[in-house]
């Protein structure tokens, strides 16, 4: 007996709407089995996660805080996907953006000028973009596999970031802890009254708008889409493919860099060895789940922000928040499998014809 696929005459509309939802539900069910096997009541663990993420005004605001970097990173990864480029390096680009913005903030500890925040934003965009341009350049000019290079650069970026915190930028008044001095208040992004939701949210929404219009109504956006959908045609049409690859990586890296700025300027207010629980990796799933649509990206990011925040509540049960990564992996598996079922139907066959 074997399983084979039969192409549907028409891809199922209903299924393609249902698949992401089903993927998440099924992933939670499989996750429940894993939790149960580790000796915890899965229902209680999930309830704790849900309450921790969405159950109160405070929880919702914390979820929103995590949503901000997720939106920015996912938009970056998503635009690369649109051009069938794989930017697995958002994590490192985020760190480089935070490094650049943090450098500016530390250079002006008393800085109260209106220009400080815009300068930090600019620095983070440039820092992330330059870091993204390394795999972009290697891909565009030498056709080096960007998946591997962008991923390996994450390790390099984080080590670079940590060198500065453990070394030259360590706070002399910090009792030897690996932190930089706190930023001056002029380098703090304003927050929404009573919460930690910061101005980065506006950046994220603006970035979504920017990408939406870029893809929809500019020549560059058109070229990005064509290169993604039909590179052969793009080549015949004489499009500048290497140039577009560079541009895509610069935008993608810049957005991740901006996410890093938001974290250090809006939330942490200084630099510390770890500033991201893997936003750049989660972004890959979000981009895929949102099918690279900028608006859906915002909604899905909120969901995954909740998953991250909910994950912290698991510690109360003595469970590792690695469960969040498990769920993310499962969602991606199920989504991939489910995607196929919208285009094909599964048939069982007793023996090979």
């Amino acid at each position, binding site marked *: 007996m074997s*399983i084979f*696929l*039969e*192409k549907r005459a028409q891809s199922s509309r209903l299924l393609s709407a249902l698949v992401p939802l089903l993927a998440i539900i099924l992933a939670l069910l499989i996750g429940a089995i*894993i939790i149960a096997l*580790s000796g915890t009541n899965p229902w209680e663990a999930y309830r704790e996660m849900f309450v921790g993420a969405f159950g109160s005004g405070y929880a919702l605001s914390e979820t929103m805080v995590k949503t901000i970097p997720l939106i920015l990173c996912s938009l970056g990864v998503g635009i690369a996907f649109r051009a069938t480029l*794989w930017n*697995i390096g958002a994590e490192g680009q985020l760190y480089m953006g935070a490094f650049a913005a943090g450098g500016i903030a530390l250079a002006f500890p008393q800085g109260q000028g209106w220009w400080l925040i815009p300068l930090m934003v600019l620095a983070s965009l440039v820092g992330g973009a330059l870091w993204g341009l390394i795999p972009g350049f*290697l891909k565009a000019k*030498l*056709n*080096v*596999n960007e*998946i*591997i*290079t962008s*991923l*390996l*650069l994450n*390790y*390099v970026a984080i*080590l*670079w970031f*940590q*060198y500065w915190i*453990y*070394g030259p930028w360590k706070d002399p008044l910090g009792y030897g802890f690996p932190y930089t001095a706190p930023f001056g208040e002029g380098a703090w992004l304003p927050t929404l009254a009573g919460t930690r939701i910061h101005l980065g949210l506006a950046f994220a929404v603006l970035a979504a708008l920017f990408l939406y219009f870029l893809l929809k109504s500019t020549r560059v956006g058109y070229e990005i889409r064509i290169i993604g959908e039909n590179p052969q045609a793009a080549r015949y049409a004489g499009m500048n493919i290497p140039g577009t690859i560079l541009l895509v990586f610069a935008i993608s890296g810049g957005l991740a860099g901006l996410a890093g700025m938001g974290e250090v300027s809006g939330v942490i207010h200084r630099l510390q060895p770890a500033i991201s629980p893997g936003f750049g*990796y989660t972004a*890959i*799933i979000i981009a*895929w789940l949102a099918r690279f649509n900028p608006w859906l990206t915002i909604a899905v990011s909120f969901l995954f922000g909740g998953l991250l925040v909910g994950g912290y509540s698991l510690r109360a049960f003595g*469970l*590792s928040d*690695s*469960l*969040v*990564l*498990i*769920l*993310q*992996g*499962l969602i*991606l*598996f199920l989504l*991939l*499998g489910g*995607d*196929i*079922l919208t285009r094909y139907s599964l048939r069982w066959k007793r023996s090979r014809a």
Partner: protein
Amino acid sequence: MTWEIVLATLAAAIKAGTPILYATLGEILAERTGILNLGLEGMMLIGALTGFLICSMSNDPWLGVLAAIISGGLLAMIHAFLTITLRAQQVVSGLALTMFGMGLSGFLGKVVIGVPISSYFRPFDFPFLSQIPFIGEVFFHQDALVYISYLLIPILSFWIYRTRPGLHMRAVGENPATADAMGISVSGIRYLYTFLGGCLAGLGGAYLSLAYTPVWLENMVAGRGWIAIALVIFASWDPFKALLGSYLFGLVDAVQFRAQALGLAVPSFFLNMTPYVATILVLVFATRETARRHLGAPAALGLPFAREEKT
């Protein structure tokens, strides 16, 4: 004195290169049939954890290795089912595998972080061969898993290039439609080698937790899976060149580690970067070489195969 340091560094390079070597060989098997599995990092982590857990329970490192091999293979079957049967996007499925493996190993391994084990793979003098000057000291004062990897290289090479099943495997990776017409089961062969590739990745992971640093640490594979994926390109899908590449990386690792121990003026952060930077440089070089000498990847790498859609 200095000579001894050189010998010790080279011996350490072999040790550091071995987990990468196993993973690279595994990926070569899968990619030779057209299946790109970016889940190496996840499979290595699961292998490292399973090996460690089973060994600490049974006190038998061999049982640990066996469990690691099986767990790596089983994890690879998820990728196989998604990409072969369901024809899903191979890159995304591999990334999902890595996340899943990272999460699962972190989740299940929490209780044994840093716990020491009493039995693990210790180096021993290989009879006779260890007496050879230089070669003996570098290559034959190692542990059993290193000796097995020496054997595995010629076996895999012979298998791939000189046997009928090896021919079928390459046919499936180069031209699945023709292989199918010849009556070879494309799916069957892809399943088989994706599974075996996962087994070897699991073994590579277990090398880390049962021989290299006999302990379990979260994310202890530390990017070696990704380095291995890059090395497959460097090796142009050839087991012997995989050996060369892996030991080169072992050497980078061993030298930077020794430099840290000697308290070199360069901050450890920069020394820790060297394996990743070196991998990128090697990848750039290898990409240019493969393009120049037409040593392309298996032609069907990354592409699903569907018989009924042929025209």
